[in-house]
């Protein structure tokens, strides 16, 4: 067994995962926050304002990365959910369920910032445009996954039920993605392309990419932190959690080599 395969197997062990998450979550949070701070600073104070939209276009620097995250996180959640259902890997159940609240937050940010941008640009806070409506349905799907997971007492049964919903919900992602192509409606078409040429001026792009990278790295930290919280809760009563509780009486979840007790 090579080192990578062994590492994956080890990661399935709850105490090992706890140590891993406790060590890496703060770093990912910190790097994500720093990259986003740079992006926000550039986006707010350095990049020139748009000749048509004025400064309101600066909202795009948080709206677009959040919208991309809202869909990417749902896709990842469905992948974890499928692995959890097929191979019954407990860690994947935990990771899938940890994705849901983060994705819900990003979806809510997308809707709120889009709405705030829409008021001065479209003259309305909300329109039942296909892109907006499908994004709202995505939020409801996230809330459904979260609600289902918390509605059933047995964690594993709950995770499996919620995982099924996550997998079914994936069908919404291409509808959101192509809604602006299929229905020519109020929401603008694709402006920024990952691989092709973007319709935005090149000088406006660096902060956007910084925000895209920053939100992804932040998500990594948040995923590990939330999965760690769920892992500890599920394992409560086990020796390693009791040792962790005993040895860290005054410390918060502070994630420094937190889990010496679990070694």
């Amino acid at each position, binding site marked *: 067994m090579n080192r990578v395969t062994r590492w994956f197997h080890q990661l399935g062990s709850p105490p090992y995962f706890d140590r891993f998450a406790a060590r890496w979550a703060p770093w990912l*949070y910190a790097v994500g926050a720093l990259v*986003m701070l740079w992006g*926000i600073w550039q986006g*707010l104070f350095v990049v020139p*304002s748009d000749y048509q939209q*004025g*400064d*309101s276009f*600066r*909202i795009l620097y*948080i*709206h677009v990365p*959040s919208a991309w995250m809202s869909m990417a996180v749902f896709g990842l959640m469905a992948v974890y959910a499928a692995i959890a259902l097929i191979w019954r890997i407990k860690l994947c159940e935990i990771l899938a369920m940890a994705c849901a*609240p*983060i994705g819900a*937050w990003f979806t*809510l*940010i997308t809707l*709120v*910032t889009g709405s*705030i*941008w829409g*008021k*001065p640009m479209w003259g309305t806070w909300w329109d039942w445009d296909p892109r907006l409506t499908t994004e709202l349905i995505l939020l409801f799907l996230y809330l459904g996954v979260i609600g289902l997971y918390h509605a059933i007492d047995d964690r594993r049964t709950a995770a499996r039920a919620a995982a099924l919903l996550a997998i079914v919900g994936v069908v919404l992602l291409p509808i959101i993605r192509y809604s602006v192509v299929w229905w020519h409606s109020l929401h603008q078409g694709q402006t920024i392309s990952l691989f092709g040429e973007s319709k935005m001026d090149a000088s406006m792009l660096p902060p956007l990419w910084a925000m895209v990278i920053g939100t992804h790295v*932040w998500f990594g930290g*948040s995923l590990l*932190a*939330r999965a*760690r*919280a*769920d892992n*500890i*809760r599920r394992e*409560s*009563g086990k020796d390693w*959690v*009791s040792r*962790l*509780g*005993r040895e*860290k*009486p005054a410390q*918060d*979840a*502070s*994630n420094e080599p937190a889990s010496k007790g679990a070694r």
Partner: protein
Amino acid sequence: MDYRNYVIAAYAFFILALLWDFIAPRMRIRQSLHDARRQAAQQDAARQRHSNTSSTNNNELQR
């Protein structure tokens, strides 16, 4: 800055949402560890009581 209030509101919401996203799991971990500590303390106390009771019983038997 044109539309300054809209921009400020959007960024404020973004930052608050991420702050909450940062705080929420830490609170849950803290709560879980607190529960684990309490549970461990209860187990220790029960073990202590059990050993006291058995040593009393042994003394009684020896008498």
